[in-house]
């Protein structure tokens, strides 16, 4: 049987997409994709050099008459497995007051979203993949009036139905952002969309923050929910021959930290950024900067592999006073890690 020859650019796109997949994940991802059958996968010798494996797989895709849509699906699955490779922004939508109950129809949403983009941009590839908790992953490859869509720089949107939040992977093609926002708003029957000052690689942490799911320990009579005893590694009753200096202060710090940060694992963020536009304040009278009328502009950025856990450990480690500044501790509560601070 002769396979219909696949478009060269499409074949190349398949090749590059499959090549990206680490060998340790190859079988899992291919099975999730569910486009190549068990039998077909068994015909491939997975002990070859990766280049050869990929070549074999692309041939199989050609045999199955794989389309651009199938390739887009594979790309979505790869991104779902490697979501930390993208930086995600969060958008918040709002309804007009007095709007009807949201009777969200996923199929209607998808068709509406696609139509809006296709009407505005002749060249655009839109693909969908349903995910857990009634959510959908959307992949958009942008083109222009005259150029075909660039499949190598797609934007991703993750939307949980009947919520006001959408998560988008920051795309370098910023010019399409308003259109994307409009499509999301109209398709999900909202009125307005606003970009939140929240950004991170960790999509699940962003979701935990805006859905307010990060603190799930509750006091009940049934004692079935998690109530871990937080001790922050401070074993004061270790040995009665050892007397801890500042025991009272240490306990106070631990108590205050526990009140603010709780006993739960903190959502994961990599940085917090503070843009200051404030007048210079100094204890010393005089000095060059003290007489300055205009506000100083400066940027303070805190970075960490796990910012909130790091902040939580500052006071117990003795590096900072407890309680910490509310500017630092309000991050998950306010759903912000970008701040602009001006003089009141």
């Amino acid at each position, binding site marked *: 049987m002769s396979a219909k020859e696949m478009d060269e650019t499409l074949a190349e796109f398949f090749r590059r997409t499959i090549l990206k997949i680490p060998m340790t994940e190859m079988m899992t991802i291919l099975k999730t994709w569910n486009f190549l059958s068990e039998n077909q996968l068994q015909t491939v010798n997975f002990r070859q050099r990766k280049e050869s494996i990929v070549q074999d797989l692309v041939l199989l895709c050609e045999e199955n008459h794989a389309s651009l849509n199938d390739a887009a699906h594979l790309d979505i699955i790869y991104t779902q497995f490697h979501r930390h490779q993208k930086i995600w922004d969060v958008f918040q939508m709002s309804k007009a007051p007095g709007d009807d*109950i949201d009777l*969200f129809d996923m199929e209607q949403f998808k068709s509406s979203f696609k139509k809006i983009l296709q009407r505005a941009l002749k060249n655009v590839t839109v693909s969908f993949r349903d995910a857990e908790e009634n959510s959908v992953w959307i992949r958009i490859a942008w083109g222009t009036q005259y150029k075909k869509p660039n499949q190598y720089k797609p934007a991703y949107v993750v939307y949980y139905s009947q*919520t006001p939040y959408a998560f988008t992977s920051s795309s370098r093609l910023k010019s399409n952002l308003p259109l994307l926002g409009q499509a999301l708003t109209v398709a999900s029957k909202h009125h307005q969309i606003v970009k939140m000052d929240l950004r991170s690689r960790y999509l699940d942490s962003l979701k935990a923050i805006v859905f*307010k799911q990060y603190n799930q320990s*509750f006091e009940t009579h049934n004692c079935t929910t998690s109530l871990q005893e937080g001790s922050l590694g401070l074993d004061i009753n270790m040995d009665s021959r050892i007397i801890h200096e500042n025991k009272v202060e240490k306990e106070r710090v631990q108590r205050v930290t526990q009140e603010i940060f709780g006993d739960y694992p903190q959502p994961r963020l990599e940085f917090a950024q503070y843009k200051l536009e404030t007048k210079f304040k100094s204890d010393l009278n005089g000095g060059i900067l003290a007489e300055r009328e205009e506000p100083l502009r400066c940027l303070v950025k805190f970075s960490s592999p796990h910012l909130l856990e790091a902040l939580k450990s500052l006071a117990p480690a003795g590096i900072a006073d407890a309680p910490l500044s509310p500017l630092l501790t309000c991050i998950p509560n306010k759903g912000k890690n970008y701040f602009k601070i001006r003089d009141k």
Partner: protein
Amino acid sequence: MELANTLRQDGESRGGVLAHLERLETQVSKSRKKLEEPQNAQALEARIHELKRLRDKLRAEVKQRQARVKASTANVEPDQILEISEQEILERKQENMKAILQAYRFTGISGKLTSRGVCVCISTAFEGNLLDSYFVDLVMEKPLWIHHHSVPVFIPLEEISAKYLQTNTRHFLFVLWEYLNAYSGRKYQADRLQSDFAAFLVGPLQRNSLCNLLSFTYKVKPEGQSFPFCARLLYKDLTTTLPTDVTVTSQGTEALPSTWEEQRAAHENLFFTKPLHQVKGNIALSAPMTKVMGFQKNLSRLSGQGPFHLTRTTDKQVFRVKSTASRF
């Protein structure tokens, strides 16, 4: 001094100093002897008497005390037994209280006092099945505020708290319970439909987060059938578990034969009035009816006679055929 005096008196007392000393010495030893002997005997005797008397007195006291202790322990024991059983009673009462507090869950809205306010537990149920519980941790300050909660993001918690939390907290909890309980019930029905009646479904069940729009295609019999129905259920009232809008349509483009049309209308009605998984149950039961109708039609067609009347026995398993025609 004395030495000086004896020296002044001279004459007879020339060896006077030494003789004086001798005299003093004998005096001392005499007086010592005097002191010792009678005092020894008398004093010792007196002392002995005294000690004996003391000993007897103490012995008597010890005996008295022992007797008293024995008597008092004998008295105390029954008291202590009473104390123990009181403690047991209290412990049992405490456990009882704890169990009652735990059982409050079944009322739907229960809570536990916390250091800053109260943690409310909203328990949901549907048709006697206990479903998920949701929590709202309230801080008792003016104004009242929610510290954290486990209410899903698609439930309009902000709206409900904006309306009622400050002015009528009780009503706030009740309204929240209504929303959560109805959501749980709808979710339960949809889950049951997907799991228990998978054989009747053609394709996936389409649903959304609130489970207030359900769309699915189904067959009346699991094995092959010509007219699958498409059902679309809308629940516009988020506090109810039964749909507000139901449309059942046939998938094909041709007009439905009349029996199927009847069925279609009947199903629509069922969806309105019964929980989803019970509707499916009812539809499954009504399958033999369609067989009967088909059988009836076939009989007429084949024999050229008719009409036939079919009656069912009560267990709906046996059909008796009665014909008006003379041939049978």
